[in-house]
């Protein structure tokens, strides 16, 4: 069965979710990945929105984390403070998988979703952290979604909104953050991981039909592509559930 790059991205993220995970997701494609995981791989995982909806029924896909569709049939509601406290709390935080996006990323997985320029002379403005920096600070498993573009994969960020592995090695732990930095960057061409010691980004998987050299050309910094292998092709069954059950209205997959 044919598939789009959006579809393989969603499935790659969904495959990383285990049955007893608590999946924190934002809007758009990250929410779709969480819902797909629940529909396909991890029926007992709990989908959890920063707005405070826990284990939402999600009969219809929400268009924002505050959408009333996250409220219907949930297991419990909590406040914003409670919601992020579940992540900061080491017991619950250990089981939380965060899925976040950003405007820019650097070789250590640090993210910019705030701005280009400086306060007083801002060249481009993005929405801001929202809960992304909180997730990136707290949870044990953090998955990043990014479109692969040279202006997005940059050597140095003008503004670090969400911590990745900071300056690499053990710099993250030294700052007092949860020692676990991001585990994967899922793009529209392939998936990056982080070297276990240096914490530098490397190419882990390329999607079928994508040349790793092409991926290299879409990144402003030097990246090791020598360890990359091809991503497992989406199964028909996966695609079928994704299309028919997860986003039948094609709100995000369109």
């Amino acid at each position, binding site marked *: 069965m044919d598939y789009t790059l959006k579809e393989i991205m969603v499935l790659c993220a969904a495959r990383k979710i285990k049955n007893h995970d608590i999946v924190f997701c934002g*809007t*758009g494609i990250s929410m779709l990945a969480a819902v797909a995981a629940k529909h396909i791989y991890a029926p007992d995982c709990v989908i959890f929105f920063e*707005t*405070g*909806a826990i284990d939402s029924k999600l*009969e*219809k896909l*929400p*268009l*924002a*984390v*505050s*959408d*009333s*569709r*996250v*409220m*219907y*049939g949930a297991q419990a*509601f909590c*406040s*914003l*403070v409670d919601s*992020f406290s579940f992540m*900061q709390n080491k017991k619950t935080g250990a089981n939380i998988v965060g899925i976040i996006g950003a405007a820019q990323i650097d070789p250590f997985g*640090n993210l910019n979703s*705030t*701005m280009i320029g400086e*306060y*007083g002379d*801002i060249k*481009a*403005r*993005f*929405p*801001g*952290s*929202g*809960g*992304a*920096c*909180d997730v990136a*600070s*707290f949870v044990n498993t953090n998955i990043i979604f990014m479109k692969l573009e040279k202006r997005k994969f940059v050597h140095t960020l003008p*503004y*670090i*909104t*969400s*911590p990745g592995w*900071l300056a690499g090695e053990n*710099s*993250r732990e*030294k*700052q*007092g*953050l949860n020692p676990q930095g991001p585990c994967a960057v899922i793009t529209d061409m392939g998936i990056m991981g982080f070297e276990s010691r240096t914490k530098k980004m490397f190419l882990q998987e390329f999607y079928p039909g994508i040349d790793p050299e092409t991926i290299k050309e879409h990144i402003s910094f030097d990246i090791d592509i020598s360890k990359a292998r091809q991503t497992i092709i989406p199964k028909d069954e996966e695609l079928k559930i994704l299309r028919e059950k997860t986003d039948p*209205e094609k*709100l*995000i997959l*369109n």
Partner: protein
Amino acid sequence: MGTIKTDTKVMALDQAIRRYVTHADHITIGGFTLSRNPMAAIHEIIRQGICELHIYIHSNGQGFDELVGAGCISKAEIAYSGNGRFAPTCFCFKRQVINNKIMVEDYTNFQMALRFLAGAMGVPFLPTTSCLGTDIINKWGFDIETRKNNSRLSSKKLVVMDNPFSKKTAPEKIVLVPAINPDVTIIHAQRADTTGTTRINGLTFSDIEQAKASKSVIVTCDELLNPGLLNHDPGNNQLPSFCVDAVVHIPFGAYPTACYGLYDYDAQFLDLYRSIASSQERFNLYIKDFILGTKDHAEFIEKACGNRLEQIKADPETGYSDRIKRN
């Protein structure tokens, strides 16, 4: 329900805004992106031409963007300015920031929520470990001079300290975020009674903390009840009467944002708003026609929503509407 008893707290929206929202006030609004923003009150602020406001929000997409576009805001302390699928970054916000029309201080959603909670609890700060090592700590939208010269601003954006309880040899770092105590908080609830007791159905976001932190509180509500009717189920009432200063009865008061259980967001209007907000000229025309050109929220809804109003009404079982066009 019978007739509604008069109470000094019950007033018309224009009266509540006139009494409690003043030029250059520090304000905050309830809701989250496209849900339960106090839109009727926001439009009334625009109608009354109140400006130079300092606003504190976490992620209030629609309400915040309209206030910014209308020129009501001079400073904003925020975590997020997007509106779900309808705006990756809010359009008026983006433009006004780049044009240096508003000053922004950036925090995270958790930090803004903690700052409201600190204000509600009556403490000067609350601790977190979020944002260590990031530019949320290093870069300040309001520099130390600006903060020193403005008594209403927190003396520092935040403070990093060593955990004094640490038993480890290397000290653990803690971030303290400063309390927010706004002049006025405006929230929209499904229900309130004439004494101010307030019940929100569905997620409360940080509305409760925002209200408790504030000097004055305006509650707009879809349904206004006589005293006592909400007391049959105290566990579902989030604000006691003594937290609320003004109660305003405004059906569809959150429109075009959603109000769980009563009505959905108006996706078609939000799509239209996207094209309106992406140009300041079009936005100015929107303000002129839709806000200044309507005398109240009922007229605004008539103009903005018209005969779609039936479609956005929520299914009482699910709390949203399956009849709105979302794609």
